[in-house]
């Protein structure tokens, strides 16, 4: 019963080869490509789920309520067909279409971390749509949390643009000023300036504020803790400062329900980015 060399060799090959083979089989079963993704974030009650259902169904009469989980839908966008500027082009046959995932996230304060996790982990993230309620943005009680959320999103995008070496690491952001059909809605320029003013304030108070409890004593003053949104040391924050990091921020007005500019502009913005 002396062990023969070929037997041992074959045995070893089988033993070592099996996991590799298994891995190849398992990994090859996921060859489908991941479509580009557009993430829809924003505070509660700004109309995120409504926009999603509008894009998917083409009609805005679906009722929606507070979301608890994120939901993705598959949509087709085109930049060269006749009806390219309209989102009601599911059945159009001309032009080339890109399939993309439109992901809605819950906006409730307690679930915001799930949206941020999505922002962090989504592969092929092409654009972020930040939805705000332009009709309610005049009130400081709405403006403050909205801007705080936007601050987190912008800071994340800025950090991602500076730290990662990959090309196309910078994600364009559209601030969709929703509910333009309402009487109290602020015009998009005012939405922009209000948000910028509030972001300036948040940035200032963050720099003077307390450190987070996670920060150890050795990390104080280190580069990583230095989170200054926009041009460092600038007195006033503007969205254009983020161009320095290749992050493009645009405020586009529109509305999901009622009469007004509609959602076509948003759709066109998304179609151009994917």
């Amino acid at each position, binding site marked *: 019963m002396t062990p023969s060399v070929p037997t041992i060799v074959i045995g070893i090959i089988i033993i070592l080869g099996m996991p590799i083979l298994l891995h190849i089989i398992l990994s090859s079963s996921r060859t489908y490509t991941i479509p580009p993704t557009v993430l829809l974030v924003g505070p509660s009650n700004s109309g995120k789920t409504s926009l999603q259902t509008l894009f998917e169904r083409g009609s805005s009469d679906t009722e929606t309520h507070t979301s608890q989980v994120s939901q993705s839908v598959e949509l087709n966008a085109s930049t060269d067909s006749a009806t390219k500027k309209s989102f009601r082009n599911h059945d159009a046959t001309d032009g080339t279409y890109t399939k993309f995932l439109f992901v809605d996230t819950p906006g409730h304060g307690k679930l915001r*971390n799930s949206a941020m996790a999505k922002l962090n982990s989504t592969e092929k993230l092409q654009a972020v749509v930040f939805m705000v309620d332009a009709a309610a943005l005049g009130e400081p009680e709405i403006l*403050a949390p909205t801007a705080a959320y936007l601050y987190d999103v912008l800071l994340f995008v800025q950090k991602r643009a500076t730290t990662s070496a990959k090309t196309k690491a910078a994600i364009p952001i559209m601030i969709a000023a929703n509910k333009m059909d309402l009487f109290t809605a602020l015009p998009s320029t005012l939405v922009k300036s209000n948000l910028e003013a509030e972001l300036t304030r948040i940035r200032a108070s963050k720099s003077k504020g307390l450190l987070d409890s*996670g920060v150890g004593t050795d990390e104080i003053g280190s580069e990583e803790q230095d989170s200054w949104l926009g041009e460092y040391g600038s007195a006033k924050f503007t969205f254009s400062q983020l161009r320095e990091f290749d992050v493009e921020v645009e405020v586009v007005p529109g509305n999901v329900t009622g009469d007004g500019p509609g959602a076509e502009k948003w759709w066109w913005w998304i179609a151009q980015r994917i």
Partner: protein
Amino acid sequence: MLDSFEILTTSGVVVWSRTYSAINPSIINNFIADTFIEEKGGFAAVADSKSAANNLPYKSDQHTLKWTLVKELGVIFVAVYRSLLHLSWVDKLVDNIKTIFVKLYGEQLLKPHTTLVECGAFDEYFDQQVQELDQTTAKGASSASAAPLEHNTVPTIIGDDPLDQPGLTYRGRALNGSNEPASPELAPATTPNGSRPATPSNNHLLVAKAGPVAKMSRRARKSKSVASAPVSSGDEAPSLKKGKKTAKKGRKWDADGYADEDDDVQLDYSANPNSDSEVEVRSAALEEVDSDTWGTRSKGKFVLNDLKDEVHEILASEAEKKTTTKSQPKSGLFGTGVNAISGLFHNIVGGKTLTKEDLDSAMKGMEEHLLKKNVAREAAVRLCEGIEKELLGVKTGNFESINARIQAAMEASLTKMLTPTSSLDLLREIDAITAPSVTSLRKARPYVMSIVGVNGVGKSTNLSKICFFLLQNKYKVLIAAGDTFRSGAVEQLAVHVRNLKELTAREGGHVELYQKGYGKDAATVAKDAVTHAAQEGFDVVLIDTAGRRHNDQRLMSSLEKFAKFAQPDKILMVGEALVGTDSVAQARNFNAAFGAVRTLDGFIISKCDTVGDMVGTLVSLVHATNVPVLFVGVGQHYSDLRNFSVKWAVEKLLSSN
């Protein structure tokens, strides 16, 4: 009557709804936020695929909401009605609708990347259920005239309504979609129904004829359950009814039936087996006629007839399924052996459907772990139960063990629990009070903050830390010595103020002490301090209070007066990280001490540097009160105050050592 019934997904899309009278959408939004997201109801709110009767009804000011949830599919069923009306059948309606809807459209909800659920044909099922259940109660009150009255109201509303239904926009597609899951028997029946123009008159006919039929079928169902031979009798029942109706004999019976019901029921069934063959022939003949004359009025009756049977079949089969799954959980020695081996395999490779047994041991371990981290048992049990319910029936991912799955779920659960509902930017809040915007029409006044807690947890120390932080941000701060009880308390604050003055004088900080000595009423001192601060132009008033034992009613009762007199914008409670199970009771008692209208606004967790990873106290505190943690004390210096970071806390709680 119901105000509204909605079927919505957890992602917020209303799949199907029926509105009888318009309600404010914020009612349902608040319901979702309170019940599912903030879990204000505590244990009961952690939902399960239970019946609506077990779920606590949610009450808004005028409406009551009965609800149930199918966790696997992520669908919530909500019925809204006026709290004044005591509709006993709503529970049953919600449950039945849940069963029917899940049976018919369950697969559609599982499709990825879409929010569309084609359920335009669900209207009829719903109407049928409402009628039937409504009728049972009407009869229970022995008012025969009430039932027809209800029928008249229902169809008029239906007539107006379908145009507004979201599902109906896709009427054409809905038809195709709905026929697939439905039984083939139903297919011919719904097709003409769906393509009809939704005229009120037609509907009226449909419904008005329902009265007698509904009753009969219920009897049939009763007999079915008595006979406990569901399959055969289920097949018989519809054919019997069809036979009856063509002969017009059934009608008369029903008319008599009102007078003496029980006898009729008896007669009804004794007659059935005898005329079995005859009926079969009749029903066969009828089916031919039926398929030929689709356009006739009699069709309306049969559509409803089939629908009712189908509904009852669904309900019966689901109920049956429930009993069978309960009665036979295991299958022989060989079966369990194979199960055990495949279970082990799945545990390594993943793709295992989690059962209660799998979870039990792992959850024990997790509970143990949390207890070791100084989480109070009550909070640990709640967290673990929530996760167990969440994971029951879930499939693990590729190469994911049960423990990893539980770990991930616990992380999500803890994060959700500890994350505050709104942002906690103290400086912003102070600015909003001391320098209100022109449009808000408020007068500028000092921002009042007070600190409460048990003896020796570090109230004065944390107060001076906050003061230091505010001074660095160039606020004028007045410290009020509200501890008029313990000897040395005022002097202690005086020392702090002196130190803070020295530390921040160069940077332009301005801090004063307001004190009235010992023995005075703390509430009056606080009130005087606030008026003094308003006169002198201070930005912030920090009020120290005497430490008090949380279960001493005499000491705690003075807090209510204090809150009324000083009107603090923020009441913070200092809790030690060192304290164990008692933290839950402390938080609860302090939270309740300020009267009905006022609660705590936040916690400061002191002495975090002394416990290392065992920061479970903050979970206990948040669990008990739903009040967020604002600051964390991490050292002895004035600068050792930190904003609370949820990520940091969750990492510490889950780290294993």
